[in-house]
Structure formats: C-alpha cells, structure tokens
C-alpha cells in the first residue's frame, strides 16, 4: 500500500520490528487472545482492561488515524473508547468479541470526528450512540474501510506543497510557524495551504453516500 505518511516518519516498519519482540500474530494466537481475555475479564475486569489495552491500543490507533489524519486525535479516540469500556462497564454488555466491539467503536468514533471536522455545525457528540446494541449491515461494515480509502486518495491527489503542509499540520501536529520555516514560506501561506487541503477533503467527501446516510441517521434531533 502506498502511504502518504511514510515519508514523514523514519521508516516505521523497521522501528516496529525492533520494538515489538512478542510472537507474530498468527490466526491461532489471535483466537486464543479472545479466550484468554474473556477468562481474565471474568476473574478481574481491571486486569482484563489492562490486557485488552496492551493488546489492541497500537493497532486501534493505526486504524483511527486513517480516518482522522491526526496521531493525537487518533490516540484520543482510542483512549476514550477504553475509558468508556471500563467506566461504563461495557465489558459486561458486549455480545460480540472484544475485538469486534473495539474496532466498531473506533471506526464509528473516527467517522464521527471526520464528520464533525467537515461540518462543524454538527455537534461532536457520539455519546448517545450505543454501539453495544448496534448491528451493522455488511454494506456499512465495508463502507467504513472505503471511507478511509477515499480520504487517503483525496489527500494523495492534493498538489505537492499543499499535501506536505496538510500532513505536517494534521498528521504531525506541528505548528504553523514550524511548518513555515520547514517549507520556507510564510505562516499565513501554510495556513492557506492547510485550509485548501481541508476544503478539498470536504468537497471530495460531499458526494460520499455513506457520510450522508449516516449524517442523516445520526442527527441528534
């Protein structure tokens, strides 16, 4: 997969291998994960949450960042889901695997954030939506993945300078003046480039049926 963020990171794949000594995740290990998790939750939910967090945090952040294009926001979203999981006792209510619940929640929240980002008049509030009881249609499940593909494509098609400014600002979370010195242009110009990128994203996603459908259904009034 070609990836727009790769050039701004120092070879993440190598860093990944170097810091992740554990076993590679084969199919059987993953199935066992769920069983071990379930037993742990029965014995001690706190320990269960801890284990779940260790197991899925990094992967979930990676999933979220594909939608929201900001490492910081992605980490926030994932932490929020884990907080609710513990504080609202969701671990007792879920009927699917922990993994399926987590991925569904992360995708839904990331999607909500994206929607809010594109249209800030819609309140950023996903609390009222109970993912526990939510069953997604096969089409919806696929649409989530397609949505982040589309986000990716739009960003890749941005003019080079615009794309760089967008990535430095949104993905790397740098400040306008830092980007300005890096790109050798004024901070005002950086700001203009970033907002142009966002505008493209907005207009590019406007035709996305999935966003519209969900916006319609998720409207709080």
């Amino acid at each position: 997969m070609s990836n727009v963020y790769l050039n701004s990171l120092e070879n993440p794949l190598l860093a990944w291998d170097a810091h992740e000594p554990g076993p590679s995740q084969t199919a059987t290990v993953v199935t066992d994960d769920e069983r071990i998790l379930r037993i742990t939750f029965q014995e001690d939910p706190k320990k269960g949450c801890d284990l779940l967090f260790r197991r899925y945090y990094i992967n979930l952040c990676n999933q979220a960042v594909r939608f929201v294009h900001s490492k910081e926001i992605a980490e926030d979203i994932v932490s929020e889901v884990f907080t609710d999981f513990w504080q609202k006792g969701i671990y007792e209510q879920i009927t699917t695997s922990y993994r399926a619940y987590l991925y569904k929640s992360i995708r839904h929240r990331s999607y909500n954030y994206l929607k809010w980002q594109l249209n800030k008049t819609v309140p950023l509030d996903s609390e009222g939506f109970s993912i526990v009881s939510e069953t997604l249609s096969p089409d919806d499940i696929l649409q989530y993945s397609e949505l982040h593909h589309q986000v990716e494509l739009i960003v890749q098609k941005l003019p080079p300078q615009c794309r760089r400014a967008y990535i430095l600002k949104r993905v790397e979370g740098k400040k306008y003046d830092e980007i300005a010195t890096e790109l050798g242009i004024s901070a005002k110009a950086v700001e203009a480039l970033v907002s142009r990128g966002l505008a493209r994203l907005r207009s590019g996603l406007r035709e996305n049926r999935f966003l519209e459908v969900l916006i319609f259904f998720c409207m709080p009034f």
Partner: protein
Amino acid sequence: MENPVTKRLLFDFFSDKTTVIQRTLIEEWLSTAENQELYYKYLDEWESENPVFRPDLDNALHAYQSQLDGANVFSVETESDTRQLPVWSLRIWPRFVVAASVLIAACWFFQKDLMYETLQSPAGKTSKYMLSDGTQVILNANSTLRVSRFGFAEASREVELEGEADFDVTHTTDNKRFIVKMGDSYKIEVLGTKFVAYSRAARKRVLLSQGKVKLQLPAGKQVYMKPGNLFTSTSTDTFDISVPAKPQQYTAWKDQLFYFDDTPMLEVTRQMKERFDIDVRIADSVLLERHIGGIYRAENPDDLLEILTELLELEVVQNQNITELHTQNK
C-alpha cells in the same frame, strides 16, 4: 469453491485493491455473524502488518492504568443507584453500603463544600492555580472559583465562577468539555481554549483569545464565539457580541494594571471597589463628570490613589471605611 473470500482477498480490500465484483462477494460473505467476527480479526491482523505510526503505548497504558485505579472508587459510587452493579463489586458491597450512606448523609449537610473545592483570590491580589487536568487559571482579585471535587478530570470538568478569571484550558485526550458556570443561567463550554470570563451580578463578560467557545444563555439560547470576540450581557439578560478594538482593557488586571480609556470617574471607583474592595466616594459633581485615560500599575489602593491625586490634583480624605476624593482647593 465453497469459500471464495480468503484472508488474502480481505487484505486486498483493506488496502483498497479489490474490484467492484469482489466487493459484492465480500458483502455477501459478511451476512453471517461468524464472518463478521472474522472480518475484524483479519482487519486487526492487517493493521499489525501495515502500521502507519507507532503510538507511545507505555505512556497511554500508564494513563489508562491510573484511570483503572482511580475510577475504581468512582464507578462504584455512581453505580450505587443504577441497576447494573458489576459482579466483582459484590465482595465489597457491605463496606460500600456503610461508606455510601455516611457519604450521602454528609452530602446533605455540606453539599457545596463537599462537592466543590473553593479557590479564592483576596482583594488586591490575583492568584494563579493549576487544576488537576492541567488547566491554568488566574483569578482576579475578589473572585471565587469552585471546582467540583468528584471526577473533575474523569467526568465533566465543571467550575463555577464569581468574579473574574483568565482560563487557559487544556484539551484532554478524551475531548472532555470544560464548563464554566456563571450565575444561574450562563455557561461557557469549551474543549481547549484561552479566554477571560467575568461574572458578577450586574454583568457577564467573556473575551475569547484562542480556540472556540460555546455559550449557553438564559432561555436555552446558545451562541458560538470566535477568537477576538467579546461577549457582554447585562442584568436584564440582553447581550451583545463585538470585536473590541482594544482587548487589553479586559486583560490588564492580570498584570496589576488599570486600563482607562476615556473612563468616567464613577467607573474608576467601581473598578477600585471590585479590585481592592474599598469604597471610594466622590461628592463633587464636576469631578464625577471627568473622564481619564491611561494604563496604570497599581498593586494596592494607595498606588492608584496616588496616581489619581497627581493626575487630577485631588485630595484624599479617609473617613472611616470610606475614601473620599475632593478637588484640591487652591
């Protein structure tokens, strides 16, 4: 073939490399619950193999663990009146009942003291505070901020303001709102911003310097503010949003400054009352009509009185608790 949807095909789909026909295949395959489970399992595997960035697990885990520990007590308390009590808490149930009933009884008597921690700034002094979520507050003189004790950082971040304060609100990792209650019917809601709020009986005021703010007004009204906007409302609940040409006048107090710009003397005395809690009276109607300008540093009432006497050639007469200002007789 019995099962045309393989892990390989799903991986291709996650990487945006499938055709429309393959997509329908996957869609059909997803109609069973087991396959949906499998889908997320493969999605997770795919994420393991295609990382985009490497978040700091140690830090995040540490934060989560302290949540797990801290939230322990907290969730038991809130769960007391809901039906779904976690199974594991049954063991500590009896102890909890005793603790809770004492707590509830105590709450009746000391509701405000118990629920809120009170931060205060005396007359003539500004005080700086850092709240547990990292938010920085500078309280103007004669002002009070009440911060909810329970779950301040975990649940909503709510404070009550009487007086004036400068807020530098941190944006929490979980996007928790920060709410400033001003009187009964005004509320400021933010995620992470910088603003100065003023809340006294006669007037409410908010000056936003950074970020975005939502204001809840009486009768369910709401307004959104942009950086640079000044919101003012009067005791009759009419309000106005403007862009002040000189926003410094609303933040001057942070540097122990008085900012006067064609300010009538009556207003000067009102500000002295507010900042230093001293009663200044001007009997002379000509003097009352005068307006003054300038930025003056005054850490105590005498500093300002000295400046005023020189500027306007005044005489200060201390009459018990009241400071009277007269024009000098030549």
